[in-house]
């Protein structure tokens, strides 16, 4: 008997699949006839699956992570064999022979352990004073060079924005998309990718109130540009400076953040859910962590190119003992995982998420904007709210009977109606002050991740 059944559910395993095809193929392969030498030890599983190659693929799983390894040539992670093996263990663990893992499994487990130890040692190894000074000087030089670059980019951007206003936005619709793309490219050259992305957003000259959106976008850009100008003075608080630099596209050193003790949040977290979006061939995974004690949210971003795997496989709806470190900001949200334990089993949680009403969310956002005016929206939990459809519009009704329009875009909200049955749910949504864009819903320990409408199977 393996522990897989106690640790994971079929739904949780399918949620780990990197894409829908892998989930389907994994389910198809979860058939014991296609496997041989199925085995299990306390914290691992293994099996051999005959694929198109001459030798069967050797698949192994460290249940603690879970971590997967397979000898198949797939670059997806976890591959369909890993998913299938875990699915079989959940469905029919009696098929697994309990015993000592074979060499190809134990060697992998040992190597994993060694790597973890080496990583820890490297992180803890002290650097000499001279090395540190040299490193610091070089970093400062690089930073100053970039600031100079950004300044020149901003000068050109302000000239561009003034030009737009002088001509009038009525002229903009006739401009080719390259009008904005060239400006964005220039900002990329000036090492200000945050501004470049905002300029690209301006180019959406179609749909309802495109002129209003463009003008609001120009206002925000101008605000950032002016704030950057002001940030050179010592009167600007350090955290606000970080927000200004963040809006421009400066990254904070993750290594330093992890060393920093100020912004850490320790304790028990629930991984409410994950979304994956494709941004310029880069897959971005957003993991929403809920701190059980404080009710604070933390957003952890992971990146992967093409179909390469994300650094960690975590199970939405699960609980973890972890230490997260927030990025420096006057309104902290984005965080890094400093340390995270295995998924906690049998953790009892009453699922009374600390959340907001429409009014309190507006006050919260108002407070955030007064500290950091560069944020566009914020993920917020609307607790005990109801979602309904009326005359082709979607609405959120909070526990105080106040309403907020829901922006669906490509999202399909009918699964949410089916999930809630018209009853109260906790809804995690991106809130921009005017509308909510649902991300996931939670009800009595069950979590529903909202997805784009499927047009076909």
């Amino acid at each position, binding site marked *: 008997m393996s522990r897989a059944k106690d640790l994971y*559910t*079929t*739904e949780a395993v*399918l949620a780990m699949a990197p894409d829908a095809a892998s*989930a*389907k193929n994994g*389910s*198809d392969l979860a*058939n014991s*006839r296609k496997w041989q030498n199925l085995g299990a030890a306390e914290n691992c599983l293994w099996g051999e699956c005959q694929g198109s190659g001459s030798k069967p693929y050797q698949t192994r799983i460290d249940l603690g992570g879970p971590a997967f390894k397979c000898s198949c040539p797939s670059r997806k992670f976890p591959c369909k064999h890993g998913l299938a093996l875990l699915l079989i263990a*959940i*469905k029919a663990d009696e098929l697994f022979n309990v015993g000592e893992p074979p060499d190809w499994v134990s060697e992998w487990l040992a190597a994993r352990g060694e790597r973890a130890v080496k990583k820890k040692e490297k992180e803890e190894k002290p650097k000499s004073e001279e090395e540190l000074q040299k490193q610091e000087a070089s970093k400062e030089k690089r930073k100053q060079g970039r600031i100079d670059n950004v300044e020149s980019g901003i000068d050109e951007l*302000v000239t561009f*924005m*003034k030009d737009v*206003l*002088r001509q*009038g*936005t*009525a002229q903009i619709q006739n401009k080719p998309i390259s009008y904005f793309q060239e400006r964005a490219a220039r900002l990329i050259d000036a090492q200000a990718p945050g501004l470049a992305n905002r300029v690209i957003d301006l180019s959406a000259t179609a749909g309802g109130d495109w002129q*209003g959106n463009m*003008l*609001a*976008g*120009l*206002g*925000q850009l*101008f*605000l950032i540009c*002016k704030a950057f100008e002001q940030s050179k003075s010592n009167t600007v608080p350090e955290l606000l400076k970080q927000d200004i630099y963040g809006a421009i596209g400066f990254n904070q050193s993750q290594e330093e953040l992890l060393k920093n003790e100020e912004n850490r949040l320790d304790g028990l977290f629930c991984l409410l859910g994950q979304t994956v979006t494709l941004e310029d061939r880069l897959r971005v995974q957003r993991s929403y962590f809920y701190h059980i004690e404080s009710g604070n949210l933390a957003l952890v971003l992971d990146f992967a190119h093409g179909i390469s795997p994300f650094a960690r496989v975590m199970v939405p709806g699960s609980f973890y003992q972890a230490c997260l470190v927030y990025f420096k900001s006057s309104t902290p949200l984005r965080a890094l995982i400093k340390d995270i334990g295995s998924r906690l089993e049998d953790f009892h949680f009453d699922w009374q998420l600390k959340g907001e009403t*429409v009014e309190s969310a*507006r006050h919260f*956002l*108002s407070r955030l*904007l007064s500290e950091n*005016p560069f944020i566009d929206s914020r993920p917020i939990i609307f607790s005990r709210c*109801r979602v*309904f*459809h009326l005359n082709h519009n979607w*609405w959120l*009704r909070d526990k105080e*009977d106040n*309403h*907020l*329009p829901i922006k669906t875009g490509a999202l399909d909200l*009918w*699964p949410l*109606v*089916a*999930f809630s*049955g*018209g*009853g109260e749910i906790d809804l995690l949504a991106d809130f*921009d*002050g*005017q*509308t909510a864009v649902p991300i996931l819903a939670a009800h009595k320990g069950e979590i*529903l991740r909202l997805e784009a409408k*499927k047009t076909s*199977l």
Partner: protein
Amino acid sequence: MNGIQDKKSVQETWQALKTSCILGTRQSHSLPAGSGLLLKKLAFLEEEQNKGLWQSTEDLMLARLALASLALKLKAPISDALNQELKQVSLSAAKEDDRAEAPPRALSVLNQLLTDTSNVGQKLIGDWLSLCAEHNYVVSRQRLPHLLELFRDKPSLVAKLKACGGERLRFLLSQNQDWHKLLENEALATESIEELTALFQEGTAKERTDALLRLRKLDFTQAESLIEKCFVKETLESRVSILLVLEKSLCQADQIFLQNKALADKRKEVRELAGLLLCRLYSSSYSQKLVSILRQRIKFGEKFELDLNDIEKDIVDYEDLVVKQNTMGTLGTKARIVLNMLALADPLIFKTFCEPETLVQHINASEWREPLLYGLFQCLADYRKSPEKTQERDQIVSYLTDCLLESNADNLRESSHGINFLKSLSQEKTEKLVLSRLPRWSGSGGNAAPRLDMWNYLIHHDDDWSKDFSRTIAQFIIKELSEKVPALGYEFTMNAKQFAARMHPDTAELVPALHAAAIDKDYFAQSVSQMAEIIALRKELQEAFK
């Protein structure tokens, strides 16, 4: 930022800014008159301009936009009036289901099935839904919207989903009108006669036929009077569509309309269809007159007699149906008349002639064997479509069917009438027929039946096979795979998955033997392997609900 939340003043100020920016700052950059905190703040920016803080008008305008864009985020998302209006909307909630959701293993099978959109896939999804209802489970609630979308044009699956959708499905149907209409019965409960009448009068072709069908169930008299009034004014296509709606819900009360209006139509297509429907109403005068003509012309005593002299005069009213219809191109006029008259007759007529065995013997011995036999095949096949089924008719139809299967099973595939008769057989009778012929199909020599016919016999039925029958057929396939020339032809390879989808799940015991038998059988390996996969999937489906 208090005061900035005033939705109206923010909106008005923003609108003024927008207008300036659309025109361009060269033409307009002044602020509107009015009150509101945002306007005051913007005016303050203008004062700064006068102090030289902003280098140009555009700088000032950008600063205004920056401030106003923040105010936009903080204004109330909807007006108080709209909020009040929305508060009046009463929200219903789904009742708690007393049934549990289908187990994860079953849901995993459903996931797998949903990836197959072929007919076989749909059949298995239907099986999944039936098993779910049978085991007293409901479908996982989050999947309902996806299934409803998927089953949009598959009413049989919607009906099955209804049985296992539980309270959550009922709730979803009440929330989404598009889905609500998927279930006809639910639609009837809410759609008024007036709405349906209007839809029939003004809707698209599809809407009109749907509305008429629903109206006939809701208020037959209104439906009848509606088509009475409009029928002659309709196009040929619409008149045929109306009669096809009648065919779906044919009843004795349709007789008058069919007789008076449809049968008197100027177009042959309409008259033919009307005649056919009237013949299915055995108690109609139209059908009874046909039976009385047959009684006068056919005598089954000690000797079979058929009198066709001057028959054309008697059948003037049936000319379109009986004389002009020629489904068998090789038959002469009189043979055609005999075939069509028998095919349209009330099956009770055969009871008045003689005992069924004798009747079949006479037919087989007659020089008119072909038209009589094919007419009888068709009559028995069409009986299932009649709304006037009675115990007495059931008995004679069943008895005659057995007699024909006993003596004329070899003739079933000779004509379309025989195939129609084959299609109308119950699953039990089909299995009996196939089993009785199995030795001849697998044998060789003079007594052997056409070797590949068997699969043609089976393809016409959609019902699930019994356990013993499934096992016997699987064993037959295994045996045939070891033969030099297996009795598995094109029909088998093309439909192997469909056959497997009807086999009893316990046939899965023979899956390893099927796989083993298919090794090195290049031509059949793939189809037998697919068959084995589907059988195994059906077994998994059954097990998943235990």
